[in-house]
């Protein structure tokens, strides 16, 4: 899969990671009924970090990032995002959600709204941005993801790759400080994977803090400064990409990598 990612060199010099903590997860546990999905998760994400989370299906990686913006509720432990702790306080949840962008596997664009309306909706209604300004912001980000000419179409008229780029632009319109990606390329054809990954690489180059659940190992090698491997609801191994791929420590990681890179 790695050859799908652009071959151009990435200038890593911009990708400075600061000491400022963006997300702090401490002893976090989550159950679905009696099923223990996430076990004792401890994770600190610094501002500007690009983290790729991988692991077999059912390992809890999606659930982990969905806990960060409270699409899933955790039952024990602590999650602090940008200094705000996630509790059942609705005000905190809305505040965190408006600062954390998210892209989904199935894009989840709003089919009854045009591309432009999809992008302006949250700024208009959550941030109370004036309409004209919201549209300028939306066009700015649509240009960034290279589809400004589609602004007046409806999501159903776009290809999968275009839809996912709109979804990224829609999140960016809220000017988030953190972006979560939940398998953003898993529902796409190979040619479309590239255009979405290119957009994500560009975003990384600008220093966005990113947590990305993906199976695109080429992307992980190229962009991530940390790769996390999860299995059975636990973080099994985390390391810098070079080390992670070339010198995996645990047997579980070795097996996973051999399966995913073996063909």
């Amino acid at each position, binding site marked *: 899969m790695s050859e799908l990612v652009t071959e151009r060199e990435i200038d890593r010099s911009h990708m400075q990671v600061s000491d400022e903590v963006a997300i702090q997860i401490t002893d976090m546990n989550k159950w679905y009924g009696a099923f223990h999905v996430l076990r004792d998760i401890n994770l600190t994400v610094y501002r500007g970090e690009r983290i790729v989370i991988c692991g077999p299906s059912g390992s809890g990686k999606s659930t982990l990032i969905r806990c960060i913006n409270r699409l899933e509720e955790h039952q024990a432990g602590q999650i602090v995002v940008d200094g705000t702790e996630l509790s059942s306080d609705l005000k905190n949840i*809305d505040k965190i*959600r*408006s600062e954390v962008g998210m892209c*989904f596997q199935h894009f989840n*664009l709003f089919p009854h709204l045009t591309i432009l309306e999809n992008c302006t*909706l949250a700024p208009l209604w959550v941030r109370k941005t004036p309409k004209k300004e919201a549209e300028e912001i939306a066009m700015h980000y649509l240009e960034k993801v290279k589809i400004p000419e589609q602004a007046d179409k409806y999501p159903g008229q776009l290809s999968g790759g275009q839809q996912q780029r709109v979804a990224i632009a829609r999140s960016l319109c*809220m000017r988030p400080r953190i972006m979560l990606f939940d398998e953003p390329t898993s529902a796409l054809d190979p040619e479309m994977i590239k255009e979405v990954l290119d957009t994500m690489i560009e975003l990384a180059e600008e220093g966005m803090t990113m947590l990305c659940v993906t199976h695109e190992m080429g992307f992980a090698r190229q962009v991530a400064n940390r790769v996390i491997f999860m299995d059975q609801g636990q973080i099994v191994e985390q390391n810098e990409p070079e080390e992670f791929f070339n010198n995996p420590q645990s047997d579980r990681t070795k097996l996973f990598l051999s399966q995913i890179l073996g063909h």
Partner: protein
Amino acid sequence: MSETHAETTRFVRTEMLAEQEPPITEKGIVKWIRENLFSGWLNVILTVLSLFVIYWVLAALVPWLANSVWTTGSLAECREVLAEKGLNSHGGACFSVITERWPQLIFGFYPPELYWRPIVAFVIFLLGIAPVLFQSMPRQALWGSLAAPFLVYWMIWGGSLWGPIITAAGFGVGALAFVFIGKAAGNILGTISAILLPILFWLFLTGPIVAGLSGAIPLEITKVESNDIGGFMLALIIGISGIILSLPLGILLALGRQSHLFIINKVSVAFIEVIRGVPLIVWLFTASLLLNYFLPPGTNFDLMLRVIIMVTLFASAYIAEVVRGGLAALPKGQYEAADALGLDYAKSMRLIILPQALKISIPGIVNTFIGLFKDTTLVVFIGLLDPIGLSNAIRATTEWNGIYWELFIFIGLMFFIFCYSMSRYSIFLEKKLQREHR
């Protein structure tokens, strides 16, 4: 030259063939008839049989309609006219019952000198509903739509204009309470006060204020009692009020049934199941008979108002289930995307979920509305003079004793016009909201 080539395996075309007309059996009406009516021996038989049945029905119906009498004053006179033409008493229709009783069928016993008022009310209703139905109209016109119900009420029932104005002001009190108390003390207190304050306002303040203002500036027109209202006017008042009120209530019930809040959820479920599980006619009897026992003695709670409330509650239970179907049909991702953008519950419902769920539910909602509108004829059983009730009254008079078909055909046709318009509007709306393949 081409002939020589045709005999060998090698072939070169030397001139291109011109386009030719298809044979007569492959185009136009002939093709259609062959394919649709005479495509096999079974279809030939069925076609001939159907033609015979159509002829048989029309042979009876057309002369009956063609010989119809429109100008006589009673059934006996009508039959005389038919007899003069050499026809028996069933040789022609006596539609003169419609022309003679027209005002009654439309207005019931509304005072004839005031017929202009329901007509004005109907025009106001049409003007008010148009911007709601057609988005191409200017959005400012919706303010007019808000005022329309109060004007319509005043036009039909008459009395002092201050009554509807102060009643409308009650809604204003609610809106102000929601905005200001909501801002100062949180959304929940805001909502509660937005419901409570208007009710208190209507109960204790409306009466004195209206009396005071009417004393100072009387804006009075002749009062008309609900008992005098009948015919299609009654059916339309009950039907349209029920339709307009049951939609928002049904949506709230559907959201309530989806809610994770225990009490709201259980109350909605209980309401829907109880209302839907009992026949409408039972609820109408409840409205007309039982409610009087429960209300404090001396309260005069208008029967038509009670019926409208019952019909509204009944329809809203059905609407709630239709809308719930629409809500359930939306992918979970839509809820998640709305949440992830930071939209709160009210905004995500209003902007994301309901527009899509309601679009899916349009056929079911309109289906419920059509059912509701036709069910208004059930009020005949509690003594209201809807078109059916009036037709019974008309047939009981000496002039029109013995007439059936003409009245029922007329009533059926009127209902059909309204229901078919609703159906066409539903199709128009579905097409307009079609986003997937445009």
